[in-house]
């Protein structure tokens, strides 16, 4: 690879010390994001995808803490930085978009003020220039009459418009990486489509890479270049999005794709995965998926598999090694 990776996550471990013992929420998670790439992180509730995003931005809620591994942005470690240094990076090099546009914006300030404040905090520009950039950003995100609306308050915007403002805010300081945590889940389906395409287009134009965390496979299919499927705090499979969706190697991914009702075919029953994702207090030994896996072997119950090459994707599954993979 000629270009160095923008973000490298190396054997990341996140723990939550509780009075009942220490819970391991993320267990040896490793992946990388290249500049300008869109990586999707998909999983069900409790899989740890939001935690991964939070750890990268440096917004892990105590008592959660990073207990091992490294996070490197442009070659520099960012997981062990003091608060002030992390604050400088957050916003300048990493932008964030969260799920609820209502709480992402401060209701007491105009959006113009919030935008210019972000711009001026991270970039050495005058206030006139900051305002001009803010108006331009709003126009790029498709907000009509940006010069007037820039002085309005968040409550004067609808949900979809607010999310556009949040995207503008995230891009304001020209970050290299945007971490988006369920950016379209709270929006109507027709607005979702608009916001997804907006995000994709803008990030390409501004040259920002995106880490898109969501549970919605459809959104992943439309936006991402690569996708990582998470299960019980670990990555189960990672690879180019078309391959993970169409020729999944990991039985969990197979089950997940099977349980999504599809628009193009009709089935009597949806394929379902028996049981539920294990709680953090009761993660099985060996492969975390083994109690629910239709193809579990003895080895799966004893040894935890690492991510291994399975053709187009990399899958954490012993079936790969024994070359028993078939769709």
């Amino acid at each position: 690879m000629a270009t160095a990776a923008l973000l490298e996550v190396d054997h990341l471990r996140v723990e939550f010390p509780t009075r009942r013992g220490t819970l391991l929420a993320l267990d040896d998670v490793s992946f990388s994001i290249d500049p300008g790439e869109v990586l999707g992180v998909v999983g069900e509730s409790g899989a740890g995808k939001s935690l991964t995003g939070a750890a990268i931005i440096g917004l892990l809620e105590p008592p959660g803490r990073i207990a091992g591994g490294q996070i490197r942005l442009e070659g520099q470690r960012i997981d062990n930085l003091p608060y002030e240094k992390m604050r400088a990076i957050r916003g300048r090099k990493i932008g964030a978009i969260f799920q609820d546009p209502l709480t992402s914006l401060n209701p007491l300030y105009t959006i113009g003020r919030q935008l210019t404040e972000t711009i001026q905090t991270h970039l050495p520009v005058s206030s006139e220039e900051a305002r001009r950039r803010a108006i331009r950003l709003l126009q790029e995100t498709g907000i009509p009459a940006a010069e007037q609306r820039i002085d309005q308050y968040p409550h004067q915007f609808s949900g979809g418009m607010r999310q556009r403002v949040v995207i503008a805010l995230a891009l304001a300081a020209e970050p290299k990486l945007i971490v988006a945590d369920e950016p379209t889940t709270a929006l109507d389906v027709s607005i979702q489509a608009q916001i997804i395409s907006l995000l994709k287009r803008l990030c390409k134009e501004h040259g920002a890479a995106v880490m898109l965390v969501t549970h919605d496979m459809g959104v992943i299919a439309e936006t991402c270049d690569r996708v990582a499927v998470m299960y019980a705090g670990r990555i189960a499979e990672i690879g180019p999005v078309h391959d993970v969706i169409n020729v999944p190697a990991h039985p969990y991914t197979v089950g997940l794709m099977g349980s999504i009702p599809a628009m193009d075919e009709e089935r009597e029953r949806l394929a379902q995965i028996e049981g539920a994702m294990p709680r953090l207090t009761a993660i099985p030994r060996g492969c975390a998926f083994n109690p629910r896996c239709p193809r579990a072997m003895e080895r799966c119950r004893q040894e935890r598999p690492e991510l291994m090459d399975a053709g187009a994707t990399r899958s954490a599954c012993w079936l790969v090694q024994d070359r028993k993979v078939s769709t």
Partner: protein
Amino acid sequence: MTAPLVEVHDLAKTFDVSAPWLNRVVERKPRQFVHAVDGVSFGIQRGKTLALVGESGCGKSTVARLLVGLYAPTRGEVRFAGQRTADLAGAELRALRRRMQMIFQDPYASLNPRWKVLQIVGEPLTEHGLVAGEAALRDKVSELLASVGLAAADGEKFPHQFSGGQRQRISIARALATQPEFLVCDEPTSALDVSVQAQVLNIMKDLQKSRGLTYLFISHNLAVVRHVSDEVGVMYLGRLVELADKRELFARPRHPYTRMLLDAIPDIHMTGRARTPVQGEVPNPLNPPSGCAFHPRCLHATARCTSERPVLADIRGVRVACHAVEEGRI
């Protein structure tokens, strides 16, 4: 053709969202109303599933609540097995309540956090006097829990000890307690993970087959609707814009809004469908557009659309409310 089990004629519900009297007098604000449901008519055959889809503010949840009697309609009527529900009172109303039940969207708020599962699932039984004694109650509740795939011992636990999918199953068990014929399901799987959703949808389909249930299924997720429904109704700002057999609706959507909705669904398998661009957002229900509510966002709008409200009419085998379709333009 037998008469439908559930029939709805010109159903409407208007909410008064005016500011309090004192504020209105002092600030000279006008009274404000939201026409959450504005003249909806449909019928559901016994044993079938009608799905109502639409985005937020379209009124589908209000229709659900009107059907089970949580709201009183401002206009129009609801008929169950031929009888007007508004005419019923007292013992007859109680009998009706046994025959129709509801499943809610939020698995965390739909169960009383301070009650045990046994009490929650048993409440309809004790309320209607369907069981005699503690032992009979326990037996019946165990049976209900087993029918949704839960253990009898789960009756002694509290809701917070269960996952979202399990709670939704408890809700289903509670709804089935009085052996109803009709279930209104308000986005029952929207708050669940995809694999859990698959489990719950499968249970619901199995129960429908084994007990001959009739469903009204509310959802915003067209893929789920496609899986569970027989007929689909599309709602926009309180009105039904299209009502058709499922296969017909998905294969040949007529109304521009239906087409927009179908186009907005992300394409998992990237079949390279051509997509028409999506315009605008759902307007403010306090100030709905004149004539056809969809005209500001419609590519085919004409002057007639801004002034005349289209009626849901049978056009070539499908019921659509659209001037352009009626005129044969699209």
